[in-house]
């Protein structure tokens, strides 16, 4: 298929890419931009390992065409860290054992980032509902739940409420 020139905004930077119009967003991120954080898991849009934010909304990059994301702001796990250091949620996942093999973690990061962006203080039910979008086959979800709680507490300590 003939390649076309598209402009993709990823993690705050614009990239001009020559890709096939049929190319999936996940493949474009991994192969053309070398952003290999987002993973291919089930490849049939159930597992959530490829989750990225498109204009702030979590979506599955294995089921989207890169060309149709032109003009939208894409955030991958590589864009989660703050000024080169780990974001609170990334640190908490490490501290609380939220990742074991780590394959699903980038997807979870994006889901959790969105959860905390729209709701700074989610209830237990809201956290569990958000986590239900992604599959983890080794650690389980309890450690992740604790990590998220810890990250919320860390954020609240860092930004004293006035």
């Amino acid at each position, binding site marked *: 298929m003939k390649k076309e020139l598209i402009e993709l905004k990823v993690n705050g930077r614009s990239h001009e890419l020559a890709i096939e119009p049929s190319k999936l967003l996940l493949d474009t991120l991994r192969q053309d931009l070398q952003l290999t954080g987002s993973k291919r898991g089930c490849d049939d849009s159930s597992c959530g390992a490829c989750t990225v934010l498109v204009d702030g909304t*979590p979506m599955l990059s294995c089921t*989207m065409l890169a060309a*149709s994301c032109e003009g939208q702001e894409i955030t991958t796990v590589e864009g989660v860290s703050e000024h080169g250091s780990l974001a609170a949620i990334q640190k908490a996942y490490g501290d609380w054992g939220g990742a074991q093999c780590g394959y699903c973690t980038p997807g979870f990061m994006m889901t959790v980032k969105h959860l905390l962006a729209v709701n700074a203080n989610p209830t237990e039910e809201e956290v569990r509902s958000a986590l*239900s*979008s992604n599959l983890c086959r080794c650690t389980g979800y309890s450690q992740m739940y604790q990590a998220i709680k810890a990250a919320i507490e860390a954020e609240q300590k860092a930004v004293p409420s006035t």
Partner: protein
Amino acid sequence: MRQKLFEPEYVLDVRCIAGLNGIRPQTGIGVEIGALTTLNSIERSDFLRKHYPVLTEAAATVASPVLRNMGTIGGNICLDTRCLWYNQSLTWRKACGYCIKKDGDLCHVAPGGTKCWAAFSGDTPPALLCLDAEVEIAGPSGTRRLPLHEFYTGIGDNYRKLEPNELLTRVFLPASSADYRGIYRKLRVRGSIDYPLAGVAVVLKRFDGHVSDARLALTAVNPAPVLVKGVTQLLNGKIMDEVLAEAVGELAAKTAKPLTTSALTPEYRREMIRVFTKRALLAAASN
């Protein structure tokens, strides 16, 4: 597409057609929902939750939260029928000699028959059937509008009346079905991501403690979502109790024709239709 169930020459992304996206209440007439409205927007719509709660409840059970950001109401209505012998990779299907729904000429679920029994597994259509929804279909010769129950054929491999050059564009809910109490109950193996293995939608209106109108629809147990006949007559003018709910449950279980198209046994899925119907009716009639 990955399983080579669809091999289209072209793929068109229609997400950006703004005119087909959004929930537009029309006073006295009802509400118009664009086919591209995401299931997440439906789940979060205060208007729909207030007036058509069975739809928001059904939308909130589709797949997972992230998938509901991508999935649309139009997509859920048009959802392909599913079967254990069909939703498999090309290699898997080839090894079994294919099936009548795709590339083959026999049905593994009902051997000997020539009918495809793949189960319709959308969550929102039973809710929409209870709400007397209509759909608008656009094609080369203009648009047509038909009641949702006429959209489905009940034949697994030709399950909807939509030509290749047509597009489902809008869904209409009439004002007459607003403000019913509504409940949707869904059987699945995991609490998230999964398609329903049996689903029950109930709407109910009461006057002075007595049921004045009620409708019940099933999904995932037939090749089409179906309204259970005779429910209104059975319930009208009565006070809801265990015995009455049980009787409607029996009726629903008789309407359900689950086969070995999905995980779990057909017997269990039919039994759960009975149980969910009873629970949903009692929940809809409780204060």
